């Protein structure tokens, strides 16, 4: 691994810069296709390039801030944003982010990498563990949903929302856009969890959106729009917090933008032409591969912390396999999307006849 600039930032070669742009493109495409942030791909990708986990999360959350700003505007026009709900959730999401930044930064500053070349092995291990645990649950839930036999009569379960509704934990607040009434306490807890995960691994949306759907009972479209609105503020607050700790590498943020803001259009285009069930399957498998990729790097961090006795010369192999696996996940997922997108694009370029049928009119007399 190369020496870090100011102990935080990787020296950017052309090769590394192109890889970050590529990460941005894949993350952006998956983001547009799935409707979540894409951090589940970009954060571990940057870590594989040697970027310390905290800086990867900090740079990514800053990138998320600008992107969510544009995205939430578009959702707002379509009436998919419940701003009141977003603001209530933000009250504790801000606290969650602050807590996450404090933990990450403290672990990073504690060092703990006497056996490795990269700073902040403790933070890297912590971020990777949270990443693996949370995203495994998310990926398995998505896949279970995608392969559920009872597809015709299914839909999001309302059991939790109904149960909480019956409890009537006052004060209960009504949200007119989402057309739901929710206990303030539940909102604050979910906001805290969303903010904490957004601050820790940069993927708050994977918690925020399902929570809004299953726990609050918010319609799916409104949940996605509101999360993006929330992500704008969480991104800004996360960026402020990480920037105060000096953990934002603006160069990485800029390079991510180059790829992601093109990729997001490709991904959104993909959702128009690919079946929803297929979107869920692709999402589930890609996330699962990202999880496996991060899982492979865990022994390396454990060794750097002195918990495992492995030859340090194996580190490049752990890192290399993790990197390959991540790129395989991203490239195969995006490849499937791109094949469909370009097939549709090519078809669109051809003029198609309207199917036409005319019934023969009777020509004779009565």
């Amino acid at each position, binding site marked *: 691994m190369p020496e870090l600039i100011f102990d*935080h930032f990787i020296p950017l070669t052309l090769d590394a810069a192109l890889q970050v742009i590529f990460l941005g493109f894949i993350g952006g495409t998956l983001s547009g296709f799935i409707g979540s942030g894409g951090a589940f791909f970009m954060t571990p990708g940057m870590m594989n390039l040697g970027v310390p986990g905290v800086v990867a999360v900090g740079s990514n959350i800053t990138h998320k801030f600008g992107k969510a700003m544009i995205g939430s505007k578009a959702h707002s026009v379509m009436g998919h944003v419940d701003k009141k709900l977003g603001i209530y959730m933000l009250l504790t999401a801000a606290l969650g982010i602050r807590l996450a930044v404090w933990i990450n930064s403290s672990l990073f500053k504690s060092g703990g990498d006497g056996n490795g070349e990269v700073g902040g092995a403790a933070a890297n291990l912590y971020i990777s563990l949270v990443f693996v645990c949370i995203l495994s649950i998310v990926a398995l839930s998505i896949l279970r949903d995608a392969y559920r036999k009872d597809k015709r009569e299914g*839909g999001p379960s309302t059991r939790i929302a109904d149960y909480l509704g019956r409890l009537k934990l006052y004060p209960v607040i009504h949200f007119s856009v989402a057309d739901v009434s929710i206990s303030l306490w539940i909102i604050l807890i979910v906001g805290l969890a969303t903010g904490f995960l957004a601050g820790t691994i940069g993927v708050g949306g994977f918690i925020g959106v399902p929570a809004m759907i299953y726990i609050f009972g918010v319609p799916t479209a409104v949940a996605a729009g509101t999360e993006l609105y929330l992500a704008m503020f969480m991104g*800004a607050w996360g960026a402020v917090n990480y*920037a105060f700790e000096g953990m934002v590498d603006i*160069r990485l943020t800029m390079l991510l933008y180059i790829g992601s803001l093109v990729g997001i*259009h490709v991904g959104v285009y993909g959702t128009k032409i690919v079946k929803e069930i297929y979107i869920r399957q692709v999402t589930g498998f890609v996330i699962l591969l990202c999880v496996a990729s991060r899982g492979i790097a865990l022994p390396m961090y454990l060794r750097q912390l002195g918990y495992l006795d492995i030859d340090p010369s194996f580190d490049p192999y752990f890192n290399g396999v993790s990197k390959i696996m991540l790129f395989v996940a991203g490239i195969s997922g995006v490849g499937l999307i791109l094949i469909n997108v370009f097939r549709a694009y090519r078809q669109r370029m051809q003029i198609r006849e*309207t199917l036409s049928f005319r019934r023969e009119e009777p020509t004779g007399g009565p």
Partner: protein
Amino acid sequence: MQIICISTGSGSKGQELAQNLAKKLDFDCLDRQDLMEEATRKGIPIGKIEMAMIKPHTFIDRMALEKEHYKAFATTMICERALQKNLVYHGRTGHLLLPGIDNVLRVRVVANLDNRIDAVMERLGLTREKARDYIVQVEEDRRRWARSFYNVRWDESLLYDVILNTDHLYVENAATALCSIAELPEFKFTPAASKIFENILLSSRCRVALFDDERTFSLQTTVRADNGVVSVTYLPRQEKLSKYIPGILQGVPDVKEILCTMAQTSIMWVQEKFDPDTEVLDDIIEIARKWEAAVELVQMSPGEGAAGVFPGFGDMTHREVAAAGEAIPKESAPGAEDYTGGIEDDVDESTSHQDEDLKKTYDKLISTGHAGGCHVLKGSTRALLHSVFQGVQYSLVVVGNIFLSKGHAAQTRLTNELVGSLADQLKVPVVLAGELKRQYLFGTKQLIQLIVYLSAVIVIYYLAFTNQIYVLQVLRLEGGWRFLSVGLLLLFVPLISLLWGTAARLLLKLVRFE
């Protein structure tokens, strides 16, 4: 033909009134309960649809389709029963099933809550408290039903022609009063209303036929009918299923021609005179191709001697227009001899060349695969809003040359009024044909914007990456200077996101990737 729809809350004696009225007028009486039983027999899961109304988050694709299935079924059943014999329908929102037909008498029956509670207690044998809860719950279900199906408030008084309070009016007398009202010319079907009715019935029958067939049940379509010509639009991802559509619809009575167009969305183009050689048509086809949209043509003309928004009819409702001017549309029964390929034949000879141009314009849309229906309309702006197809999700409305008989200033003013009304009603972008290119296609302005934004991005990136160390030093400023670096970051990130985001969007637009 005559249809009376009675909408009522629990315990308001609406059902009693409907039956009494039907007996007095010798009309058929159809109850919502009958409709639901018939729908259930057909396999439509009414209970699950109702549940999905109450808990909107349970609304999955299947339920959304079932909802549309029920809507089409209910429309068909009401229309077919009305064809057999004049009809009194008693239910929640029957009057909303026949958009554009103002000749339906829409009645709402209300009553004091205490009286309604008494009625429910007597009818269902409940305690007072439970009867109150029952009424509140049913009202809430109705509210959600109307909102989910039609996006309206069911208790909105403007949706009704008559509101009767049965606290102060005996059912017998209320029925007698309604008998007199039903005799008014406003509530008799005119030839124009009959034509709209026939189109609604045919499109509903086609939708039911598509839903009833397992192969096409999952097709997300919009179906429009006009004088026997059925236009079906379907989503690109369902292209494979589209081959079944003609075969299924061939079996529907009164279908003369079927046009199936693949489309993500719809564009409405309103104009007084269509010209197949105009540049606007090419622009609209270009946009339709990019958006995978179907284009619906509406040829809208003011009548002779009109005043106000539409001379002569400016202050009249569509019903008034239709009632007062039955001669305006020269109606004729749809038949093979006057069939004109989907273009209405109710215009006089002086406008036949207009029809020819409209037909050519529509043919051009058909040949490019973007035909989404074609209508000829005479009347006010309100008439246009009434005739807008309720189930269609428009993404754009284009208003072309219109009010041609007016002077330039009046034409501009009236056109702007029309644009404003359409935008308010439809909640979608409404643009003038002249603005189309600038707003939705890649023109000179977009090219300049792209060059400026892209240049700015290149300069910023060049400066940042040739001075990496200084940039990182700014991010690592200590003490009070850290506030400055954070502030700069918060300003810089949205700026670069906006600049490159816009440039990337324009670049993709340039290569027609939208």
